[in-house]
């Protein structure tokens, strides 16, 4: 007979190993976690290749917005991932804190992995004359023209932003259900609409436009970190009182 020893468990700081353990739980079906965003983007890519192949030179070397699908899907995956894994992992025995840190860790790793993948695809796109059909799928913006490794950040940092936004939405969804998402949507519309109204009222659109044009790079890989951090911290403040 083997008695299961009970370790006395004093309250300790956060064991990093537990965060890694929970991160493995989130990736128990990792092909789905990674494959879903890439699969949707791949579909968008394939359709673009077919269209550009069919149209030939008629539309020249025009960029497409198909890459945006990866960012949209990443937001949804992080939202649903946080929402659904919470009941499973915290429901069985994970702490909210370990769970949340694991979710952020996985999102960061995924974003970096996707960023590197997009950077590699960008090189292939250039080397193959736009996949043989003059397609600009992975290099749709002036910011992505550069071959410098900074371009990895141009891909990755916005992915981190949409991931943390997804984590924030997932946290709100988990804590307050559909009503939370409804209120959040209304608040978002009010805040963004209010800002737009303010700029219109001050007749500042040309200035705002030129500021955006001047600051694309710093906006993308610098200023975007502010909403990223706000979403990550906000998500934790919401989820720390959620019940599985």
């Amino acid at each position, binding site marked *: 007979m083997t008695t299961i020893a009970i370790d006395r*468990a004093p309250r300790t700081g956060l*064991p990093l190993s537990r965060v890694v353990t929970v991160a493995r*739980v989130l990736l128990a079906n990792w092909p789905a976690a990674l494959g879903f965003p890439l699969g949707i983007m791949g579909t968008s890519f394939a359709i673009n290749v077919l269209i550009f192949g069919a149209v030939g030179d008629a539309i020249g070397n025009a960029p497409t917005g198909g890459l945006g699908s990866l960012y949209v899907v990443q937001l949804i995956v992080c939202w649903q991932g946080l929402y659904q894994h919470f009941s499973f992992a915290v429901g069985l*025995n994970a*702490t909210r804190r370990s769970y949340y840190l694991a979710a952020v860790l996985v999102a960061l790793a995924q974003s970096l992995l996707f960023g590197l993948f997009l950077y590699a695809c960008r090189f292939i796109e250039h080397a193959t004359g736009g996949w043989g059909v003059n397609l600009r799928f992975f290099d749709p913006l002036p910011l992505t023209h550069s071959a410098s490794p900074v371009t990895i950040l141009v891909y990755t940092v916005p992915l981190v932003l949409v991931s943390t936004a997804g984590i924030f939405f997932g946290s709100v969804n988990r804590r307050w259900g559909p009503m939370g998402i409804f209120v959040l949507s209304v608040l978002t519309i009010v805040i963004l609409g209010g800002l737009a109204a303010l700029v219109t009222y001050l007749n500042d659109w040309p200035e705002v436009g030129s500021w955006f044009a001047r600051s694309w790079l710093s906006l993308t890989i610098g200023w975007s970190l502010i909403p990223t951090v706000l979403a990550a911290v906000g998500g934790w403040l919401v989820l720390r009182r959620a*019940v599985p």
Partner: protein
Amino acid sequence: MNPVVEVRGLSRRFGDTMALDEVTFALRPNVIYGLLGRNGAGKTTLMQILTGQQFVSTGTVRVMGSAPLENDAALAQTCFVRENQRYPDWFKVMHALRAASYLFPRWDQDYADSLVDDFRLPRSRQVRKLSRGTLSAVGVIIGLASRAPLTFFDEPYLGLDAVARQLFYDRLLADYAEHPRTVVLSTHLIDEVADLVEHVLLLDRGRLVLDEASDHLRGQVVTVTGPSAAVQSFAADRTELHRTSIGPVTRATLRGAVDEQTKAFADRLGLRVEPASLQQLVVSLTGGPAMDHGSKESLR
């Protein structure tokens, strides 16, 4: 031996409702507890608090000697399998088991594999496509194979057929004998677990109304059945827990052991005296008007 769980003056209020009201008890290591009570008695809330999932209004809770809330070291030694255990939509059975194997330091993969075979679980089927009973089996397997020193089962076998439930009881007992641990089993199928649980905790409207060893309970409560007047006379100087009547026949549940002399007295009155089952005891202690129907059924 130090208790695994210590709860003192625990209350949890949801708005106007007291889900738990000044509950105090301790759980000893290596005992199978039955946590019983009617729907809404506070059983799930109590288990959620003990596993750090729910918040305390007042009182103190210690699990493995420290507060469980956000305590990784303490919670890693617990496992909570609930009736409506949720799984991510993209998990197959094998993913759920793999994820669980990461969460529980004492997970036994060989044992989990044998349980999957015993319960005839389809490893590569998506969890969301499983039938209610098969879904319950996934939770049961996780709870057993976790070998967590403190394991909670909250109505774990909704939809499981009688054969699978018996399999669960058999496997639990056999594994418990090999690897003793503290198990808290919350269920409404009281008769089924009566021989399994060593200690009973009974909640009624948030209050702990019973905290006793099963062996001790068995002799302490009897049911007396017979003509109403005779039952009335027999019960006169005893603590009556519950009474139901159908026509001229009355059945009363009475507290206190019955010796040979009293038994002879009952015989003379034409009464049948039997030790109360655990289920009868629970009905007696917690049954309001809504339970009378069930009591009458069991009289027939």
